[in-house]
């Protein structure tokens, strides 16, 4: 039986295989922790083996110009980040604004500008820590600024074709279909308009942003100060155990170490006896711990309070957040081998800005929890390797700002200008820029290779292939007809309807996958209506990047989720209205800038 002789609900056999594969793939991505690149490869394998796609189509993603451009851009961006461009911008642009509205503008505009050329995730990852410090300086809760940060990077990303992968994928598919390449700045005016509306909306809806204490505030005193008290030889507690003296958990802190005359005991068991001359090391709030001098007759050690800098010589305290999908969720550190495997000890856990009172090693962890670890100062934590479980914010080596900062910026600008003016096509431009970055030593070959995220490239290539399958099997055409049946033949209503669905689908799947899957549907719908698809696709680009309503909608949301102490519902509260506002702004501006034209 041929694939075309089986028709059910208007779809042939191959179309049903594709639909089942896509649904299965997204279920697997949503509900399991399998690697996304593997899931996409599996989906391609199914489509290839079942004959839905021939070899050429099945592997078209790997030779797709847009996927190659994304890969090469990783190197260009590495050149920029390793020469301190981001730091320069941060240093000069944030400043000391007087009001929340000014702060939002000063934050969102530079972030959007950077994200329009760099990876959104890179920009947000760098800004998270800076915004946290900045918010402290401004006396604003970080939760009021971190969602705007993430939204700005998403909205900035759509302003150029190279700013975000879905733009490249959609423009690449458009070039394949029509033979005409989109200008690298095709989305700039609509993108800037949406950004402008977005910034105003955030300021207007600022009450919808939660006012939450920074999660680390709960650790602030613990992580900054350790107090050392000396037990006098004639102290009444000499010979008693730590438990008998009642000093394991004291108001405001806990005992982390006992230093006997010949031995250091840490962690301290309840049965450990107190001896004269012992030095008891407490972590916590100094003033409250110092009350022990009065209640227990301890005295200041000769070196009784030391700051983190001094403590660093003996130990290292690091803060990390539990990521979404982390295998540590619903487990306790005490029952896992995590501490042993990574040579770290969990000292404290905070949830949404409040210290969890239970014993930290017995706390059942949740996504977004903040963990305070202690480890030896020599230990260098492989944050990349742990990134699927915990997100560490490093005080990374900040690159020095120097002549190379200017060189890398010039290379980037030259790349954008040359491709925008169509002097050299984007792919060639990207290659030239990457080579220039390497030749000018803006990044080392190792840094360049390390910057290329092969897993992400694999997912992008997979997304392109899925888009091809959706097109080739006639699903796109059927869905387009279906949409036309429901929405009639008004092109603006059809454009709005597809963008509306895309905006919500992209909340649950990657923006790139949404772009690749909705491209054929939008393209077919425009063609069926007899209009040039270009404006429809510009609107689609903005829609698939407008995922504001869930923290899983974008990797940048996930980056700010824990540091902001957010809840899932915080994103829904401000994100849903944002989705609708940006959708309206998007449809309006696209139709103004690119008026619909009938197909020739």
């Amino acid at each position, binding site marked *: 039986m041929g694939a075309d002789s089986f028709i059910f609900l208007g779809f042939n056999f191959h179309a049903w295989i594709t639909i089942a594969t896509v649904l299965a793939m997204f279920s697997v991505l949503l509900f399991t922790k399998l690697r996304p690149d593997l899931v996409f490869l599996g989906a391609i394998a199914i489509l290839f083996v079942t004959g839905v796609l021939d070899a050429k189509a099945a592997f078209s993603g790997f030779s797709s110009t847009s996927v190659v451009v994304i890969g090469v851009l990783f190197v260009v961006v590495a050149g920029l980040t390793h020469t301190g461009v981001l730091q320069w911008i941060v240093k000069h642009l944030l400043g000391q604004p007087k009001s929340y509205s000014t702060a939002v503008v000063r934050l969102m505009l530079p972030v959007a500008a950077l994200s329009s050329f760099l990876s959104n995730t890179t920009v947000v990852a760098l800004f998270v820590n800076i915004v946290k410090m900045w918010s402290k300086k401004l006396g604003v809760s970080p939760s009021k600024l971190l969602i705007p940060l993430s939204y700005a990077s998403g909205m900035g990303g759509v302003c150029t074709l190279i700013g975000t992968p879905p733009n490249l994928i959609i423009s690449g598919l458009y070039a394949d279909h029509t033979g005409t390449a989109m200008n690298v700045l095709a989305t700039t005016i609509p993108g800037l308009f949406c950004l402008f509306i977005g910034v105003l909306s955030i300021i207007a809806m600022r009450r919808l942003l939660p006012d939450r204490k920074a999660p680390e505030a709960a650790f602030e005193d613990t992580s900054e100060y350790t107090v050392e008290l000396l037990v006098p030889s*004639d*102290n009444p507690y*000499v*010979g008693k155990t730590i438990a008998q003296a009642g000093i394991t958990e004291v108001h405001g802190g806990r005992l982390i170490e006992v230093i006997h*005359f010949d031995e250091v005991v840490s962690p301290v068991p309840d049965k450990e006896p107190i*001896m*004269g001359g012992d030095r008891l090391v407490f972590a916590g709030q100094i003033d409250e711990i110092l009350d022990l001098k009065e209640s227990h007759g301890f005295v200041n050690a000769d070196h009784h309070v030391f700051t983190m800098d001094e403590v660093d010589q003996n130990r290292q305290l690091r803060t990390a957040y539990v990521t979404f999908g982390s295998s540590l969720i619903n487990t306790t550190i005490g029952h896992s081998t995590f501490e042993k495997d990574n040579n770290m000890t969990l000292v404290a856990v905070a949830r949404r800005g409040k210290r969890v009172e239970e014993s930290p090693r017995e706390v059942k962890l949740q996504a977004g929890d903040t963990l305070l670890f202690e480890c030896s100062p020599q230990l260098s934590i492989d944050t990349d390797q742990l990134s699927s479980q915990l997100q560490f914010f490093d005080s990374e080596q900040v690159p020095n700002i120097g002549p190379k900062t200017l060189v890398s910026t010039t290379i980037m600008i030259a790349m954008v200008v040359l491709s925008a003016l169509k002097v050299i096509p984007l792919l060639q431009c990207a290659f030239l820029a990457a080579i220039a970055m390497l030749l000018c030593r803006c990044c080392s070959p190792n840094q360049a290779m390390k910057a290329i995220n092969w897993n992400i490239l694999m997912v992008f290539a997979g997304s392109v292939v899925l888009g091809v399958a959706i097109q080739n099997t006639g699903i796109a055409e059927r869905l387009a007809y279906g949409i036309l049946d429901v929405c009639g033949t008004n092109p603006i209503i059809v454009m709005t309807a597809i963008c509306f669905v895309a905006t919500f689908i992209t909340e649950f799947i990657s923006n790139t996958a949404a772009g690749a899957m909705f491209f054929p549907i939008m393209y077919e719908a425009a063609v069926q209506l007899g209009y040039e698809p270009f404006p429809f696709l510009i609107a689609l680009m903005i829609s698939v990047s407008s995922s504001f309503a869930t923290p899983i909608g974008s990797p940048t949301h996930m980056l700010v989720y824990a540091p902001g102490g957010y809840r899932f519902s915080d994103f829904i509260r401000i994100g849903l209205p944002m989705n609708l506002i940006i959708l309206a702004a998007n449809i309006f501006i696209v139709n103004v800038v690119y008026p619909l034209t009938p197909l020739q």
Partner: protein
Amino acid sequence: MTTTIQEQDGKMVAILKGCLDTAAAPETEKAMSPLNDVEGKDIIIDCTEMEYISSAGLRIFLAILQNAEEKGRQVYIKGINDNVRTIFTITGFINIFKFM
């Protein structure tokens, strides 16, 4: 490090010889454990030939003292050298134990 336990004049006597450092502590603790089962007799820890005591050693002494006190018995320490006396003084254990 050697530990000998014997009965003298109605008292249990533990004779310690050598260095009671952290490494020797587990073995010494085991050797002295019969003292915890003693009923109705005072205990003498003879340290005349003990050269050094670590915090791990002090933990053993303390455990024996607490066990004996619960049973209403006394623990005496005998013949400590200057070195060990200094440790007992610094740690305040000199005020907890009785010396003979």
